[in-house]
């Protein structure tokens, strides 16, 4: 019985939250990696673009709520996401046309692109804050829990409860569907393959008649979808605050690089690597050991490797280690 309790404990406090957080990071990381692989720059506006997409989603959610439209037990935001995506893509294409296109034609070095993306970051941040304000917003409605901790305890007779939030299930489900679709698109369709070819070797791809304009367009469309859905899922699960989104850029970058930048599958797994290591290293295992170990060996302290304050620092340290020992990432991405 104690053993089961211990497993439920880990499931409830480590596995499910890490899986959710990892999914959110993974979507962002694939976004970073796609931009890096195909447009060839580190996009420092990542977090703010995600917050832009989320903002559009929230505005549509409010609109639907005012109309009285709802999805019943599911959050209304799911209905608003497609509209948010459209706005996000339009915004990205606008930015690309007025900002990035010029440097692409100039064949500017990646550093210059990165600087320009900082300009975009400032502008996007201003736009989001001017439109929706900097405060914390919750836009979740519908049923909050699928399984409540108390119900679970009554059902199974265990000491530990397992709470399953609907946002967690939605996040994991949507991520799986979206990522499978994306990989199907990249590996099976002609456009996807040409994107890969373009990313591998631009000149060769151009020689074989691939239209660069189309590649760039498709990249931004996919990026818009990923950014909006990733951002909206994060906002549903936690809350929407522009500043938090800006900060999330850092673990997202870490995930993309750990997975091997330029490699979408690596970025996908990188998200989970970062999320699990953040939570595994900062969780206090005291209760777990109380269940597992005999009474005489019970630990005195919290048995926490690092205090939760260092959550971000964990992922960054992992990144630094990976950069040092395996600069191309766990799964080989573009060679540095």
């Amino acid at each position, binding site marked *: 019985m104690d053993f089961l309790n211990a497993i439920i404990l880990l499931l409830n406090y480590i596995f499910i939250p890490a899986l959710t957080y990892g999914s959110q990071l993974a979507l962002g990381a694939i976004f970073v990696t796609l931009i890096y692989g195909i447009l060839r*720059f580190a996009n420092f506006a990542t977090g703010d673009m995600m917050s832009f997409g989320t903002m559009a989603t929230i505005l549509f959610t409010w609109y639907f709520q005012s109309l009285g439209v709802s999805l019943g037990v599911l959050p209304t935001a799911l209905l608003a996401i497609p509209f948010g995506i459209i706005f996000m893509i339009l915004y990205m294409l606008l930015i690309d046309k007025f900002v990035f296109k010029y440097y692409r034609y100039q064949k500017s070095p990646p550093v210059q692109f990165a600087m320009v993306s900082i300009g975009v970051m400032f502008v996007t*941040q201003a736009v989001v804050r001017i439109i929706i304000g900097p405060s914390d917003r919750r836009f979740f409605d519908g049923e909050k829990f699928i399984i409540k901790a108390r119900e679970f305890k009554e059902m199974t007779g265990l000491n530990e409860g397992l709470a399953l939030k609907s946002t967690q299930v939605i996040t994991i489900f949507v991520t799986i569907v979206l990522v499978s679709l994306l990989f199907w698109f990249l590996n099976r369709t002609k456009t996807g393959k040409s994107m890969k070819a373009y990313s591998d070797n631009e000149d060769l791809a151009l020689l074989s008649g691939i239209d660069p304009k189309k590649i760039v367009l498709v990249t931004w469309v996919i990026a818009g979808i990923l950014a909006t859905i990733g951002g909206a899922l994060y906002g549903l699960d936690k809350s929407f605050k522009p500043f938090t989104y800006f900060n999330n850029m850092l673990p997202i970058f870490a995930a993309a690089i750990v997975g091997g930048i330029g490699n979408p599958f690596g970025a996908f797994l990188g998200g989970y690597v970062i999320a699990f290591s953040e939570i595994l290293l900062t969780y206090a295992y005291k209760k777990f050991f109380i269940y597992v170990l005999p009474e005489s060996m019970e630990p005195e302290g919290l048995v926490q490797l690092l205090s939760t304050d260092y959550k971000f620092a964990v992922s960054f340290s992992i990144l630094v280690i990976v950069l*040092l020992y395996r600069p191309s990432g766990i799964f080989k991405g573009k060679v*540095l």
Partner: protein
Amino acid sequence: MRKNLNVIAAYSIMMVLILMVGIFQSWNIALSIFNLCLISAVMTMGANIQWGYAGLINFGIMGYTALGGLAAVLISVDPVQEAWRAGGFDILMALWLIVVMVLVIRFILKRFEKSKIRTYSIAAIIISGILLIRFSAEPGIEAIEAVDPAKTGFLGGFGLPIVFSWIVGALFAGGLAFIVGKVALGLRADYLAIATLLISEIVIAIIKHEDWLTRGVKNVIGLKRPAPYEVDLQTTDWFIRLVEKFNSGKLSVIENLADRQAALNQLVIEGSSVFVKLCYSGLFLVVVIILLILTQKALYSPWGRMMRAIRDNEEAANAMGKNVVKQHLLIFILGSAIVGIAGAMLVTQDGLFTPGSYRPMRYTFLIWVMVIVGGSGNNFGAILGGFVVWFLWIEAAPISLFLINFFTAGIPETNALKAHLIESVPYFRFLLMGLGLLFIMRYRPKGILPEKIEIK
């Protein structure tokens, strides 16, 4: 003279702008803008040395600034004897353990050939070392943090004058830069940017959460000052007489003696804070001028020429026998040290250390906007960038408020859109910075005052 015309013109315009703030808003605001412009200028010079001279991208400016600030705390605060007694020994033991760990790793690195076993054993040493240090220092840290937590709860500093911290801040930042440089400088430019950004976040996380050293988010307030206190000035005779002399015209108009005394008191209060700010301006100006002279000398020295050669063509410089790795590390340390000075200056001016306020937007990206806008590779440009961008950053809100009111003059105050826009005035500074950066990058990619190489 003639060829420096644009420099002189740009600086005169800048000065006129600040004077205008003084005349139209208040001298207090003008001087506080001016002081922060000077600090920003020091930071920009540091970033400019790395980016403009050597082409190294350092997005970790925030971390070095915070370390400079930490130096100000550690130098100027009086030591907390009780805390030292409570946990000083444990902390010293932990420090000693760290030194031992580093020495052991160095020994292994020197002694054995590169192999998987070596890597794993080093990793094992680091992990077990961290655990050992954590468990041995834990009681000491807890004891220190328990010492009067509302007021101290940390070890305190050395109780020296705060101006010394400017040098120590440079040393701290340089030390960190040495470690970061050893680790990350081999990376390609954009990876280096990301790595330095993330490392600076780690530094901030440590400063925020190691309460025994920095008091963390509880902040350290009331640091010593190199300048007199306003309250003291207001009761000093010579200062009151000085204010009276300055404003004799204004005061003589007032007939009533009591009214005149009241007016004088008001002027003294205002004057005292202006005077204190002027003291800071003087100190900061000295630092800026010294740094400017040094950096200019360096730029035109053979060393500066070598740095530019490395920046423009690394392979060629390498082939000419220049040690690129070593020079990169050197310039990375120098630039970061200058940023560290600025961090210490900032805390000196504020008189308080708030680790929670270090955010990458303000301390990394804004500084980069300054470097790019001012003109990378040109020290005068970098300083100008610091001035222009900081001035706009502060004055963006009034300017945009004015513009909004101007363009929506016909719309009634109750209009929802107008009210919303006026409410969000503080965020127009981001817009202004972003657009400014994008326009400069596009139409004047070398900045307002571009790099100019004279062969002497």
